[in-house]
C-alpha cells in the first residue's frame, strides 16, 4: 500500500496508542457545490435523493442540426418500404419506431468496473431539434438517484442507441443498480452503433473507436477535447474540491460523443440506402481512404 509519509506516521501513532480509542467524528466536507454557474440547469428530485440536470437544444451548440433532423425524418418514412437484409434490418426497425421514441445514450464513469458513474447524456428528437439532457451526480452519494432517473427516463422510450452500449454502458448501469440495491429496467430495442460500424469499416479504418470514426466518417477533428482517460480523475477531484469549472470539458466531451453517434447513424442509414446520400459524408472518407491506400 503506497501511503504518504505523513499518513504512515499517523498510522504509527495509532500503533503506539493503546487499543481503546475514543470515537471521533469524521470531518465531513460539504461536497455539494453549485454547478449552475457553468452548466445551467436545476436539481431533479427522485426516489433516492437528488441529481443535477443540465439541458440544451442541439441547435444551440451545432450548426448541422437541421440537416441531421431532416435525414432522420426521411429515414422514418423510407423504413416502412425498404427491404434491408441481415443486421441492417435493425436500421429499419429503428426507423419504424421513430426517432422521437429512440434515445441516444452515453455514460461517463470513473473506470471500467465497480466504480461510480456520474454523468449520463441522452439525446432524442423533439420537433425539429434534438434535446440534449445530461444527468449528473454531484457526488458519489447521488449515484443511486442517477441510476434510477436514467432507468425511469429510458422507460419513456422504445429504443436506445449507443456506441458499444451492449458491452459497456447498459451492463455498467445494471451493475450499478445491483450495487445500490435498486432496479435498472431495460428491455427495449437496443441499437449498438459499434456493431454496425465494425460491419462497414473494420479493415478499412485503423480501428473502430468512436473518435476514429469521427475523424474519417464524420470528417471532424476534436480540438481541445479532454482525453477520456483523464475524465475519472477530473470527477474525483471535483468531488474532493467542489470546483465545478473542472466539469465543463467533461460535459462537453459527453455532448460531442452524442453528436458523433447521431452522425454515424445518419451515415449508416445512407450507406444502406435508407436515406439519400448526404453530400458531406459521401465521397469524403472514401476518397481519403483511397488516397491512404495509394
Amino acid at each position, binding site marked *: 500500500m*503506497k501511503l504518504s509519509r505523513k499518513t504512515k506516521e499517523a498510522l504509527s501513532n495509532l500503533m503506539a496508542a493503546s487499543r481503546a480509542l475514543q470515537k471521533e467524528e*469524521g470531518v465531513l466536507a460539504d461536497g455539494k457545490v453549485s454547478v449552475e454557474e457553468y452548466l445551467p440547469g436545476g436539481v431533479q428530485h427522485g426516489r433516492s435523493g437528488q441529481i443535477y440536470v443540465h439541458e440544451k437544444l442541439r441547435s444551440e451548440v451545432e450548426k448541422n442540426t437541421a440537416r441531421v433532423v431532416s435525414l432522420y425524418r426521411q429515414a422514418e418514412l423510407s423504413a416502412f418500404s425498404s427491404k434491408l437484409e441481415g443486421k441492417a434490418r435493425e436500421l429499419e426497425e429503428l426507423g419504424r419506431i421513430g426517432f422521437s421514441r429512440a434515445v441516444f445514450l452515453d455514460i461517463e464513469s470513473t473506470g471500467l468496473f465497480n466504480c461510480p458513474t456520474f454523468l449520463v447524456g441522452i439525446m432524442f428528437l423533439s420537433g425539429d431539434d434534438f434535446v440534449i439532457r445530461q444527468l449528473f451526480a454531484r457526488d458519489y452519494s447521488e449515484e443511486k438517484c442517477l441510476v434510477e432517473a436514467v432507468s425511469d427516463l429510458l422507460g419513456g422510450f422504445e429504443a436506445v442507441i449507443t456506441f458499444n452500449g451492449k458491452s459497456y454502458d447498459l451492463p455498467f448501469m445494471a451493475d450499478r443498480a445491483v450495487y445500490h440495491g435498486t432496479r435498472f429496467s431495460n428491455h427495449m430495442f437496443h441499437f449498438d452503433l459499434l456493431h454496425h460500424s465494425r460491419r462497414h469499416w473494420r479493415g478499412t479504418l485503423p480501428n473502430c473507436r468512436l473518435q476514429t470514426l469521427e475523424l474519417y466518417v464524420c470528417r471532424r477533428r476534436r480540438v481541445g477535447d479532454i482525453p477520456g482517460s483523464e475524465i475519472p480523475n477530473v470527477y474525483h477531484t471535483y468531488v474532493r474540491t467542489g470546483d465545478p469549472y473542472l466539469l465543463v470539458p467533461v460535459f462537453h466531451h459527453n455532448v460531442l460523443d452524442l453528436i458523433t453517434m447521431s452522425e454515424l447513424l445518419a451515415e449508416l442509414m445512407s450507406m444502406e440506402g435508407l436515406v439519400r446520400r448526404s453530400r458531406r459524408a459521401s465521397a469524403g472518407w472514401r476518397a481519403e481512404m483511397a488516397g491512404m491506400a495509394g
Partner: protein
Amino acid sequence: MARTPTASLTETLESLFSSPAFRERVKYVKRLPAREAVHRELSPPLLPGLSETLKKLGVGPLYSHQVEAIELARAGKSFVVVTGTASGKTLCYNIPVLESLLTAERANAFYIFPTKALAQDQLKALGRMAREDEVIGERLRSGTYDGDTAQHTRRKLRETANVILTNPDMLHQGILPYHTRWSRFFSDLKYVIIYEIHAYRGIFGSNVANVIRRLRRVCSHYGSDPQFVLCSATIRNPRELAQELTGLQMELISRDGSPRGPKLFVFWNPPFLDDARMERRSSIVEAKELLVELVKSGTQTIAFTKARVVAELIYRYASDDLAAHSAALKDSIRPYRAGYLPEERREIERQLFSGELMGVVSTNALELGIDVGGLDASVTIGFPGTIASTWQQAGRAGRGTREALSVLVAYNDPIDQYLMRHPEYFFRQSPENAVVAPDNPYILAGHLCAAAFELPIEPRDRALFGPLTEKITGLLEQEGNVKGIDEKWYWSRTDFPAASVNLRTISDDTYTIVDAKKDNKVIGTVDAISAPELVYPEAIYLHEGETYFTRKLDMEQKIAYVERSEVDYYTQPVLDTSLRVLGQGREKTWAGQKVVLGEADVTWATTAFKKIRFYTLESIGYKTLDLPFQHLETSSMWLIPSAEFLKAVRGGGKNPIEGLAGIRNMMINVIPLFSMCDRQDIGGIIDSSNTGTPTVFIYDRFHGGLGFAEKAYELIDEVLSACLSLVKECECREGCPSCVGLPILRPAQHQDPDVYHGWPIPSKETAMEMLSALLVERARQAPRGPASSS
C-alpha cells in the same frame, strides 16, 4: 492389491530393529496407543440419497465429530473442526452443504483453500459424490474460480454455480471488488467453508481476516449472513484463531471420533563418522536407506524434506538403490514438490492414492491437506521448525486401525540434536499458537481502501473493522483516498486498491523453468524469491531426479532456461545476507544503552555456488556469481550496547556476541506477545557494520513494515524483562529452542528453507547475565520499576 504390504509393519520393524546398526541410531521410541472409533446416530438421519451415496463411496457409519458437525450446521451455528489427518474432516462440511443443496431451492457455498491445488483436490471429491447420485449430480454445480480459470468459465460459474472453490487471494482481488456480478451468488450464500486455517497465521492470517470482514460486509449488502465452517490442523488455539478470522462466535469440535491404529514415533540420529564425534553420517543418506528398506518390505512411505534439492537427491539415490533390486521397485517411488507442473502433481497424488506408488519424497507441499489416503510410514528429514508441522507430517502415516510408523531423522544441527537429546521436550510441548492481528493499523488501512472501493464505509462497519475504523478512515480521507459524504466514505480514486494489497508475505510472482533444447517447453515453476537460489546460471536443476544445466536466468522475463545434461554432481548456492540502515527515526537511552527506531534494507543474494558430487558429497568446484540482491525495505529497531557494557561482559570471560545472539533469539520469541504477530513475521540479525559495534537488529519481515519492531522499541523494557523471565524460568541447563535457541532465522521473506543451516544454540548463561545486568541498571535509573516505560 498393490497396497497390501508383503510383511506386516511389525515384522518389518522387528527386522530393522534387530540389526545393531539400526539400534545404534534409534534414540527414542514413543508408542502412541490405538484409539477406537466413536460413532453416533444422527437424528434426523441423512436424506436417503445422500446416505446411499456415502455408502457407495465406501464411507461407513458417521464418526461422532462428523455427527456433531452436521448437528451444529443444521442448528445454524458456525464452528471449527480440529481433528486428525484422515479423520473425515471433509464430510464435516460437504454433508451440510449437500443437505442444504438438496433441501433448499437456493443455497450457495464458498470453499476457501490456501492453495489452488487443494481446491482442485476438493473439487474432485465433490465430483465423486455427484457421479454416484443423479439428484446430487443435478443439484450440484461446482467449480474452481481462481487465476487459472478461463474467462468464459468464470462467467458461467458466476451465473450458475452453487459451490465455488477458491482461495483468499482470488476473493480479495478477483471476486469481492466485482461483487455486483456475483449478486446472485452472494444473495443466497449459506455456507463459507475455510479449510486448513492454521495456514492463516501472522501477516497472511491478518490479511485474510480482513478479506473475510469484507466478505461479510458484501454478504450483508445482498441480505445474506452465511454460516462459517472452518477446519484446522492441531494448533494450540483453534477456536480463538477461528473467531479472529471470522469475527464470529465459533463452536469447537475437537473430539476425534475416527479410529487410529497404534503408532510408533521414532527419533533417529545418524551415527558419528569419526572418533572425534564431530561429523555425523549424512541425514540424506540415512533417510534414503530407511526409505529403501521400508519400500522393499512393502511399507508405503512418505518422506518429507525441508528443501526441494534434498527431495530430488533422496529420490535419485533411492531409485538407484531400488533399481538394483528390480525395475518395478525403481518405478514405485517418485519425488513430489512445489514447482512441479499441476498435471504431474495430480498424477503423483493419484498414484499414491491408488497404491501404485510405494514411496514418495516430498517437500512440505504435501503437508497441506491434499487427500492421498493414509500411508504406512512417514519419515521426516530434519525438524521442520514447528511442533505443529512435525505432527502434521507424522499424521500422514496411519490408515484406519492399522499400525503406523513415523520417524524423525535428525540433522546435525543444534535444534535437531537438542531434540535427540531431549525427546520428551517434543512430546511435552503443545503445538504452537497461531496469532493474527487484523486490527494492525497498517494492514487495516489497505483493507479499508479495498472495502471503500467495494461499498462505501459506513459507521456500522466499525462492528466489523474494529475501533480503529473511524480514525483510519479519517486519515485515508486526508490522503484523498476516500471522501466522506453524509456519514458514508466513498473510494475517490481511479486506482484499484486491492491490487496494492498483497495478502502473503511471499511474493506470488513465479518464474517459469523451460527446456531450452525442447522448444522452451515448460517443465516447472519456482517462486520469484527462491528462483535465484534454485536456477542461478550454471546451477544443476533437478527434476524427477534428472539433472538439468541452467543456461540462463532471465530475471526480467522471469524465465530460467535449462537443458538436459547428464552430470555427476549437483549444485548448492551460497547466500549472503546483510542489513543496511536507511534512516534513523526516534532514539532513546535505555539502561545506559542506545535504542533506535528506523528503517533498514535487508538484502540477500546467491553470491556463489558449490558443485557437489553425488554420493561421495565431495566438493568439486566453487564459482562466484553476480546476481542482483533481493531487497526487503522495512522498519527496524536496534539496540546498541555501550562499549563499557561489552567490555564488562568480556571481562567476565564471556563472549558478548553470543549473549546478544541469545537475546535476539528470545526477543523474536517474546515480541509476538506484545505486538500480536507470528514469530515468522519478524527477523533479527547481529551486525556491527552499521554502528561500528555489535548491535541487535530486529525487523519486520514485510515490505514497508507493519509496526512489530516499532512496538518492540516502545516496549523495550517489557520485552527485555520478558526475555529475562523466559531464560530464567526455562528448565534447560545450557540453552534450548524454547529460550536462547531458535530454529528459523531466514533473512528472506519466504519460509521455504531450500538453503538451510542451523545456528549453534548460544550460551544461556551469557544471555542471562547480560539481561540481568541491563535490568538491574534500568531499575537503578528508574526506581519506580521497570513497568513504567514510555
